[in-house]
């Protein structure tokens, strides 16, 4: 089976900019096969523990590196263990795309989170995914099964052991949010600026269930993060809040898909990003409303703040609607720091750096306010502010 998947991976060409989804993300110079998979680097020791941007009081804790997964703590009555075979594995993210296929073929260290029916966890479940080998490839796989009426938070954080560590990160996460369940899913990506990062996250939200998702993007060199939500049961709701900040030569690519399958479903995606230096970002968003998904309410927003002459953003929202009783809205803006605001602040004796910081903070306020977990909100706020140099 794994060998078939590897064949599939090999048969798929590396995406090029002539493939529409990759038009703005050029993978020239990247060869996934030059990275050493899952550790086993001869004569090399791991670069040490990766730091965390979060200060969390957690119910469960796991750390993943190329070498393996370590479960440090897990609550009673909940499955929080290394992922092995599972009937739901691969049913949301298959192997029909180059990087998903690569993950399906080579992942070794994954995590299964399964919360039984009706169980409510106060503290979040936390996993850190740390690229720790120079030129290593880490294939991370997460499977979350929220049984009906359960409520909990899962936080995953991607980091590199050193800020100059070069690596390849390939992640797949599948989330099943059962009937009436509520899941908060936080995915913070703070990899080194020398790491290629490709991720496919997909969730299925069942009847009357609720998914509240936070995606933070600060690190990595280049790659693509795919986020798909299937509103599969009537009354399902999903909310995805994205905040990103890129600088230097970073390139971030978010590809989001809101798939409304069942009636009376709601999705609300808001992504805001700031870019400075030569950084670039591309955001694609598609709302698809299937025929039966009447009374859909779908929202999609992407706003970019451009902080330097050379920064660049592409924003490609989209709607495909096959039901008629719907309310779908999207908005996209790309704008520089407002010069009047900057002037106003500076005229009142505030330094340029401080004024810019105020403006960036103001820009992100509404997306930050959507983040319910306070430590996550604080960590994201801090990560954003840390990117603005002091005057």
């Amino acid at each position, binding site marked *: 089976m794994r060998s078939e998947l590897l064949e599939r991976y090999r048969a798929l060409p590396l995406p090029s900019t002539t493939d529409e989804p990759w038009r703005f993300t050029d993978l020239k110079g990247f060869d996934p096969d030059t990275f050493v998979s899952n550790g086993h680097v001869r004569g090399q020791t791991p670069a040490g523990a990766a730091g965390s941007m979060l200060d969390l009081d957690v119910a469960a804790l796991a750390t993943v590196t190329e070498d393996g997964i370590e479960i440090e703590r897990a609550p009673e009555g909940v499955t929080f263990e290394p992922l092995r075979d599972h009937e739901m594995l691969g049913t949301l993210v298959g192997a029909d795309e180059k990087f998903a296929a690569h993950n399906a073929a080579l992942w070794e260290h994954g995590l299964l989170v399964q919360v039984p029916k009706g169980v409510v966890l106060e503290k979040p479940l936390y996993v850190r995914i740390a690229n720790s080998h120079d030129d290593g490839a880490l294939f991370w796989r997460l499977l979350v099964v929220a049984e009906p009426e359960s409520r909990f938070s899962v936080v995953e954080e991607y980091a590199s052991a050193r800020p100059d560590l070069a690596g390849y990160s390939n992640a797949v996460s599948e989330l099943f949010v059962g009937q009436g369940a509520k899941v908060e899913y936080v995915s913070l990506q703070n990899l080194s600026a020398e790491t290629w990062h490709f991720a496919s996250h997909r969730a299925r939200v069942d009847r009357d269930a609720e998914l509240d998702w936070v995606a933070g993007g600060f690190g990595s060199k280049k790659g693509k993060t795919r986020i798909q939500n299937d509103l599969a049961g009537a009354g399902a709701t999903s909310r995805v809040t994205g905040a990103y900040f890129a600088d230097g030569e970073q390139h971030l690519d978010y590809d989001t898909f809101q798939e409304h399958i069942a009636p009376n479903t709601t999705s609300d995606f808001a992504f805001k990003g700031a870019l400075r230096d030569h950084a670039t970002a591309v955001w694609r968003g598609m709302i698809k409303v299937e025929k039966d998904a009447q009374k859909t309410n779908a929202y999609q927003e992407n706003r970019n703040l451009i902080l330097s*002459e050379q920064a*660049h953003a592409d924003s490609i929202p989209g*709607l495909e609607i096959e039901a008629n009783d719907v309310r779908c*809205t999207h908005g996209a803006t790309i704008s520089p720091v407002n010069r009047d605001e900057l002037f106003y602040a500076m005229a009142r004796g505030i330094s340029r750096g401080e004024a810019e910081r105020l403006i960036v903070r103001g820009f992100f306020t509404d997306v930050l306010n959507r983040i319910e977990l306070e430590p996550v909100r604080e960590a994201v706020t801090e990560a954003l502010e840390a990117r603005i140099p002091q005057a």
Partner: protein
Amino acid sequence: MAATPETEIVAGIGNDYKYGFHDEENYVFKSERGLSAEVVAAISERKNEPDWMRKFRLKSLEYFMARPLPEWGGDLSQIDFDNIYYYIKPTEEQANTWEDLPADIKNTWDRLGIPEAERKFLAGVGAQYESEVVYHKLQEKLESQGVIFKDMDSGLRDHEELVKQYFGTIIPQNDNKFAALNSAVWSGGSFIYVPPGVSIEMPLQAYFRINAENMGQFERTLIIVDEGAYVHYVEGCTAPIYTTDSLHSAVVEIIVKEGGRCRYTTIQNWSTNVYNLVTKRAVAYKDATMEWVDGNLGSKLTMKYPAIWLLGERAHGEVLSIAFANKGQHQDAGGKAVHVAPKTTSTITSKSISKNGGRASYRGLLEVAKGAEGAKSKVVCDALILDEDSRTDTYPYISIDENNVDIGHEATVSKIGEEQLFYLMSRGLSEAEAAAMIVSGFVEPITKELPLEYAVEMNRLIQLQMEGSVG
């Protein structure tokens, strides 16, 4: 020859398309079906063209053959390029009075109301029937001011240097597959030159009529608006209803020089067996304004995205697009604005309605190149979806390479509000009337931009499309 009896027309129409009649064919020349270098060379020879144009056509044919069909947009797989007539010459000479036309062709124009419109509110008229412009007239006053308004073939004959300077420069012959096709087999269309400072108050109109079955119509239009000049060009089009498909693939190139303004209005009402695959692009220089008002009501599949390249400082571009997709129709329409110079501004407003299984797609591009500092653009797309069998899509591409810009895009999809319907019905309107009124209100931001006569026509066409629909 008399036109088809009214009853037959009605039977074929379904949704009350009143232009579905056709004349019997009584042509001077009709090419063989299909496309080849021989067909292309024959067209050029018959038109007695200069050698450069013959070569241009043949090269374009190579490009057309080499390019694959686009895989995006609508379904093009059913077009049978070998079954199309690429050139039909209906009359020997072009007329400049309606009476000089053969009776059946004149009758067609009368039924379309063109001579009457000319008398009332037009500064000039060109009427294209199949491949050739059979009637052409410009008010003498304008002629004496140096305005040129001719069919493209006469334009090439009489003003070869001017044509050669601009032809194919805005839309290169290999721009896309259908631009290449048009460049190979083009015939008819308009050539317009407005001298500096001349403002043409009343619109110039071109009307395009396909009559034969499996006809391919490939008009080519070139408009040059010189410094500080103004023209409003209006085009309309209709075709008979046949069970097999026809192809309309036009290329329209427009140059608006410093301080000039051009407005180009289209009311596209092809019958639902016509593939309408059109490339339209304008360049606007310093302080110039280009406006596309694009109404798409007819055709089987339309793929058309009028574009404006804002090349000079403070140039302004505007695209107003209405699409109505009814049963069996796919309107893949939109607009493009490319900001190249500083302080350029653009607005794209799209209103689409899908009904009865129709599909309306907005597809657009907003691009700001490096150096277009202070550019501003706003793209607003609203879609109304009238029943559960219909579909609407929005694909607005945005690509920004300049940091000091202000760009906004918004889109909404909704159905007719029940409160609005209820309110209107409580005032004594039937449900269908109320729905039609709401739709008219929905597209009003665009229809109000049309000259009165066309606004009335557009509203009437929308009413027709709305007939038999229940909100």
